[in-house]
């Protein structure tokens, strides 16, 4: 899927200090009926964000006008549960480019990386510092530098390095996906099949 090339993002962040945010919360199953990748952002966190009558739940961070930005800060074990890639699509479509947590579920992490959404793993203690920074100043800005693999709290200058495998980093920086790579090696795949 085509997505924007990723280099460096400076933005305030939206806090979601809940653990084990599963993909059913990110996008409930009843919103998975589309056959195109469009408009999933409208239903991002549907049941946490809206009342049954469709009115917004004012206490939910995405509805709080104090918060804005391209970075979502989530509690540990973010993205557990269903493999639905719609979760990554919904976050991207809403406008997020980075999700930060102390721990991501495996499938979600792959799905995010395949869609230009950068999952940044930071130590649990640092995650709490990010939450505290936003609590004190909701406009506080953060910098995510993919080239340097560095996440910085700009107010204090505190930063951590994050891991990403060099191949995925290259893909994100250039807006490439794995399918280009695999299709280019079809002859090798066909040769492998003969050895089986």
């Amino acid at each position: 899927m085509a997505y924007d090339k990723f280099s460096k993002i400076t933005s305030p962040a939206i806090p979601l200090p809940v653990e084990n945010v599963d993909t059913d919360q990110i996008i409930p199953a009843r919103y998975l009926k589309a056959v195109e990748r469009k408009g999933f952002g409208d239903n991002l966190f549907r049941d946490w964000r809206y009342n049954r009558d469709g009115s917004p739940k004012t206490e939910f961070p995405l509805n709080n006008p104090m918060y804005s930005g391209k970075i979502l800060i989530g509690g540990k074990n973010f993205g557990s549960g269903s493999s639905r890639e719609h979760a990554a699509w919904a976050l991207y479509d809403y406008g997020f480019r980075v999700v930060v947590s102390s721990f991501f579920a495996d499938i979600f992490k792959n799905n995010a990386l395949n869609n230009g959404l950068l999952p940044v793993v930071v130590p649990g203690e640092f995650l709490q510092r990010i939450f505290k920074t936003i609590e004190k100043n909701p406009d506080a800005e953060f910098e995510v530098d993919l080239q340097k693999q560095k996440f910085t709290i700009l107010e204090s200058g505190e930063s951590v390095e994050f891991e990403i495998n060099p191949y995925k980093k290259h893909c994100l920086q250039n807006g490439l996906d794995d399918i280009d790579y695999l299709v280019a090696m079809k002859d090798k795949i066909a040769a492998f099949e003969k050895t089986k």
Partner: protein
Amino acid sequence: MEAKTLFDKIWDAHEIEKVKGGPSVLYIDRHLIHEVTSPVAFLGLKTRGLKVFRPDQTTATPDHNVPTTNQHLTIMDELSRHQVDMLKRNCQEHDIVYHDLQTDGHGIVHIIGPELGLTKPGMTIVCGDSHTSTHGAFGAIAFGIGTSEVEMVLASQCIMQPKPKKMRITVNGKLKKGVTAKDIALYIISQISTSGGTGHFIEYAGSAITSLSMEGRMTLCNLSIESGARGGMIAPDETTINYVKGRQYAPIGKDWDEAVEQWKNLKSDPDAVFDTEYTFDATQIEPMITYGTNPGMGVGITQSIPKTEGMEGSDKNTYLKALQYMGYSEGEKMLGKKVDYVFVGSCTNGRIEDFRAFTAFVKGRKKAQGVTAWLVPGSQKVEKQIRAEGLDKVLTEAGFELRQPGCSACLAMNEDKIPEGKYAVSTSNRNFEGRQGPGARTMLASPLTAAAAAITGVITDPREFL
């Protein structure tokens, strides 16, 4: 030669190359697809002007979105119907075998794979569904993938994956009466948490595991993902071989003999090293029930909801948020809690053995008034078998009725939604907020515990009736 785990052996035999500083290119033997996670992948192929690379290694069926009554009629929900039609059209266009509603091969994708003999030891199997881990019960590497990855496999029969770490979970001892594979799984997850398996692929071992039937092994491997693991597997043995033999896509004659010889080598070497190991005692496991909003929030059925003593900060807040959603308080007993709905089905517990267990339990008893029970066979074959064995008559006499195959209330994508605030005992795999319908409250349990709840209307220890 270096000692290898079962996982290593299968992975290494399917790794075409390892990208420098990146993932492996892994060859996929069998790709299962369904209506929800495939349409965008087919659209991607079209945009790139690609055909499906190996259509004969791809199998399709609609399951997530289908109604479980009146399947002979047009699907009423327009969006669901469109998704199912789209799958059918994509399969026609790309020459993929499609098991339509009402045909013999139809059912939940993880139920039909093994039933048809598509799932075999030593294979790599993927599907755009996290419960693909089910197929690991046969000694296969099977895991769930996202839609971008579905497109990769359609385009190249390969996937790019970092090799996970290896975990072994050994469960020794004899299971007590009334304790099933579902209880083993919920027990393990309650011990290692819903993120304990993250980054790992599990191999289950030990006498309590090898004594399980294939159905039980599938239930256990199915729930591997709920511990965060990519998948779980069990080394193939006589039980596995006997199950596969004679199925539609199983090898025959000389090919069968050769396959069995190969399968016998599919086990971890005695001195193979796992990154993480756990050992549990089967005799310590009770029938399990969940009380919260993730599958790790489970206790033995006679136990109380754990107290928050010793919990701090976001751990405590997340825990209390879950109890609030469930309408429960810390320290309460689970026994005796009200049950409004009972759901038996899903890729976790929708196989014939599950319906046999449920039926034997309710035989000669009556469904409690006020309980709505949805019994949803995992496939056409399961439904036929239920009827062939006369289980349907026993169920009718006890006040239950059978629905038609599909994923149903497990994820409530179709009409089978538990109403807001109602309590459901469910044999499915996830008790997340709203999973079974907006505001629905789910308690995960085995088919036996579900049966006990169905006839009493409250959470009941099934052992009282055995």
